[in-house]
């Protein structure tokens, strides 16, 4: 670039005075700000919509879960419908498999043996002190059940032993608070989330209860003998009537209060309801 070109450029720059009018500036900036605002609103709207969707989904999920839990137990005065069975089956299967299949055969046997030993030692203790398990005696509640399925696991209680022979078996009225349940045995552990309480013995769930306004729904698994609930887990399946099958699960109405859930022709857990006093 020669000197003349530099002068030309310098002269050109000296003449750079014109500007767009303020009105144009304002119009352009306003348009840009409007777009920014619109984008922000869109973003807020999207976020709000997403939040509402998530909340709605959560609420619906909770409602569905509650309904499933409610319908998974026998209605007090109505027989279990196919719809109810269909609703509860998948969830129950998942729960049962995930919890029970985690134990190996050896572990299961060991667990059973531990429960038996614990019961035996308690039996001796009660016989020695000539004490009855007051919690059972005081809280007994009559509920009709299949004779061979449910009994109270307190052989020291002769009254109960007699009842075992009759058609009227008795279920214990269990505490409905976690603290009360844990008091039933020193080895128990548990947790409470919302209206759901779970009780574990040796890290295996043996009791689960869900509290409703005037009703508590109990579920009991193998091992619940430790809290005086005796269930013949190896009972003959042929004795059970009024069963509904869904996928790998069979749900049998023992009576209008008690339900047995079987998987692969093996009793997995029982469900019953207890009124809140």
């Amino acid at each position, binding site marked *: 670039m020669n000197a003349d070109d530099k002068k030309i450029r310098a002269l050109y720059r000296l003449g750079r005075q014109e500007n*767009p009018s303020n009105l144009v500036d304002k119009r352009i900036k306003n*348009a840009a700000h409007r777009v920014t605002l619109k984008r922000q609103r869109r973003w807020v709207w999207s976020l709000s919509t997403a939040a509402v969707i998530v909340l709605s989904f959560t609420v619906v999920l909770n409602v569905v879960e509650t309904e499933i839990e409610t319908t998974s137990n026998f209605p007090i005065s109505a027989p279990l419908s196919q719809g109810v069975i269909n609703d509860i089956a998948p969830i129950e299967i998942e729960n049962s498999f995930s919890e029970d299949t985690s134990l190996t055969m050896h572990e299961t046997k060991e667990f059973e043996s531990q429960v038996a030993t614990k019961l035996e030692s308690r039996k001796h203790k009660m016989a020695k002190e000539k004490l009855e398990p007051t919690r059972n005696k005081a809280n007994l509640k009559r509920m009709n059940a299949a004779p061979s399925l449910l009994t109270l696991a307190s052989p020291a209680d002769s009254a109960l032993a007699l009842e075992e022979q009759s058609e009227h078996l008795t279920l214990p009225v269990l505490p409905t608070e976690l603290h009360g349940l844990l008091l039933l045995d020193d080895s128990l552990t548990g947790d409470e989330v919302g209206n759901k309480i779970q009780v574990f013995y040796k890290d295996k769930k043996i009791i689960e209860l869900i509290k409703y306004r005037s009703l508590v729904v109990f579920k009991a698994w193998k091992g619940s003998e430790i809290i005086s609930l005796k269930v013949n887990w190896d009972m003959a399946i042929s004795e059970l009537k009024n069963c509904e099958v869904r996928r790998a699960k069979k749900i049998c109405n023992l009576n209008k209060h008690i339900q047995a859930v079987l998987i692969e022709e093996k009793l997995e857990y029982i469900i019953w309801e207890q009124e809140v006093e």
Partner: protein
Amino acid sequence: MAKTDISDESLYVSWKDGDKTAFDLLYERYRQPLFLFLLRRGHTQSAAEDVFHDSWMRIIDGNSKFNEQHFRGWLYTIARNLSTDLFRKLAIRTAGSLQDENIEAHHVSTQRQQEGIDCIELIKVSLQNLPLDQKDVFLLKEEAGLSLQQIADMLCVERETIKSRIRYAMKKLRDWMEDCL
């Protein structure tokens, strides 16, 4: 980092993300250069303002595809295209001048004598008389600050072509502004 150090592209993205001050900063950077580019290209003040406004609206509305690599090139391409469209509509000469250069030089010189304009005004008048392709190269270099290669890319021609155009433009300007040099 000072705001002046932020690249055009970052400001544009920030504005897109909701930072309206980013747009203001970007606008201030190109407010005068872009307007002068349009004005010196041959538009009247009012027409230049219209094209200037429309160019920014294209940017704001996002109707044109943003080349993230080079905001400046994108902005000037939009403005130049809109300006050319307007020239076409007004049937103003857009291609290289077919007029004899001597006639142009005579025209500039006569205009200067008649109006008694100074050198600063003379260069403005001289620019108006350059063929549009040469004028574009001069203005894109001076106002947009683009390199020869960037101008070549923008106009889709070889870099050598741009060099030739700028050489011709400067030669004509030297001739017409002889008295001022």
